[in-house]
């Protein structure tokens, strides 16, 4: 009878352990860690202050734990942070402290908001994750780093949700305002815009992934050439 009570108690306690902030983050990480490599088709759309650039198609390659490469035939603009910075952050559960903050709805899905703080001195100052506790997926993340400011990422999942690979990813990041010297631009008819004195803006890059190929060997040359 006593043993039966202990077993019942354990059964009742298990879900509660699973839903702890660290436990939930680990479940998300476990899901993504099944992906050792992947390649996919990619469409990139840009909205960067002071830069007018058309969308472009390309390919994306990933190899665990940190190799990531985008290949396109044209010029692209990317945030300084690795687009998978948020996921990579979760891989070492000993390096951070996770604190549950609240429950919020993101894209009509109820999420658990978890803040992540580094245990030791690290480049990231704070991380914030909006996690779908049912499907164990990160729907939104906000990473603030010392060197590169804040990177907000929104994820939308489709067929590859089982591997925690998003169909769409939208990255929002800080961009310094810049100007081309008039002597370089030789822009005779241009006018100086009044009141345009902001030193910073927010850039946005949308990734749309297609044709995922998961866990198929990728040559390391792809990441260096």
């Amino acid at each position, binding site marked *: 009878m006593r043993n039966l009570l202990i077993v019942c108690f354990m059964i009742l306690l298990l879900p509660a352990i699973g839903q702890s902030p660290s436990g939930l983050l680990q479940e998300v990480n476990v899901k993504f860690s099944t992906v050792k490599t992947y390649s996919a088709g990619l469409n990139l759309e840009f909205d*960067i202050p*002071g*830069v*007018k*650039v*058309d969308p*472009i198609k390309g390919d994306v390659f990933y190899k665990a734990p940190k190799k990531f490469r*985008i290949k*396109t*035939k*044209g*010029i*692209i*603009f*990317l*945030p*300084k942070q690795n687009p998978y910075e948020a996921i990579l952050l979760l891989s070492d559960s000993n390096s951070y402290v996770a604190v549950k903050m609240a429950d919020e709805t993101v894209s009509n899905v109820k999420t658990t908001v978890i803040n992540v703080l580094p245990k030791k001195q690290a480049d990231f100052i704070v991380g914030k994750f909006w996690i779908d506790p049912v499907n164990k997926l990160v729907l939104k993340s906000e990473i603030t780093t010392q060197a*590169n*400011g804040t990177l907000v990422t929104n994820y939308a999942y489709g067929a590859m949700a089982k591997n925690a690979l998003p169909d769409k990813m939208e990255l929002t*990041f*800080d*961009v*310094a*305002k*810049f*100007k*081309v*010297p*008039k002597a*370089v*631009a*030789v*822009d*005779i*008819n*241009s*006018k*100086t*815009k009044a009141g*345009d004195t902001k030193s910073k803006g927010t*850039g946005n890059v949308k990734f749309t992934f297609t044709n995922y190929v998961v866990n198929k060997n990728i040559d390391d040359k792809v990441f260096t050439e």
Partner: protein
Amino acid sequence: MLVKLTLNELYKILAKPRSYIGFLAITTIIMLIEFALYVDGKNYIGFIFQALEQTVIIQGEILNGSLVCFIILQTLIIQMPLLVALVTGDLISGEMASGTIRLLATRPVSRGQILWSKILAGGIYVFALLFWLGLLALGGGLLFFGTGDLTVLKTDELVILRESDVIWRFISAFGVAFISLLLVASFSLMLSCFTDNSIGPIIMAMSVIVLFTIIGTMEVPLFDKIKPFLFTTHMVIWRNLFDNPVPKEMVVKSIAVLLGHIGLFLSIAHYKFTKTDIQN
């Protein structure tokens, strides 16, 4: 007859050493720019993009043939009208000064035909000058720096045009530049009809272009009202062909203004030349 007259005028242009100054200047400037960018282009690009690269990674080759051609075009576009005026500014007055216009007028052709042969010869010279510019700037640029997306450098923004979207813009830009330089040719030719001094119309045409360009560059509110009426404002419309999307209405309007000016200057030149009592 007009063809023969035009060929004769072209021969006269070719016989003048000053006709080659433009080609020599263009060749020297382009070679210098291409050499400088080939040797030190990475630093030049780094200087322009240093602020942006503090927060963003730029992936892809910015320094390529398209950008080199664009830099050359925007550098030379101020000097090109001066090189054209140097030749077309004395097509009439030069012959007035030397007295050969009387000999020409004794031939069984109308004065209108004489004037038109000079206009056509001037147009062919302008075309040749632009073709040489295009060959060295675009051809040389693509040969030495390769192809790629074009980064259009504007004071307040960068416009990145995809490789497949670039060549037609360059061809159109050369087309608009041809109309602009034809305007300069017709303006200097018109001035040339009013004097028998060879140098006067050249200096006058150059002065007007420099003055209008300075007014166009200065950001003084008073000048803002004048700018739309200056032909130099519309001569740089080729740059807007590298906007995305192209401001079609603005480009068409500017081309119409340029063609209107050409029509006006040639009409005045025709009237003056056919009515002039040639006494030299």
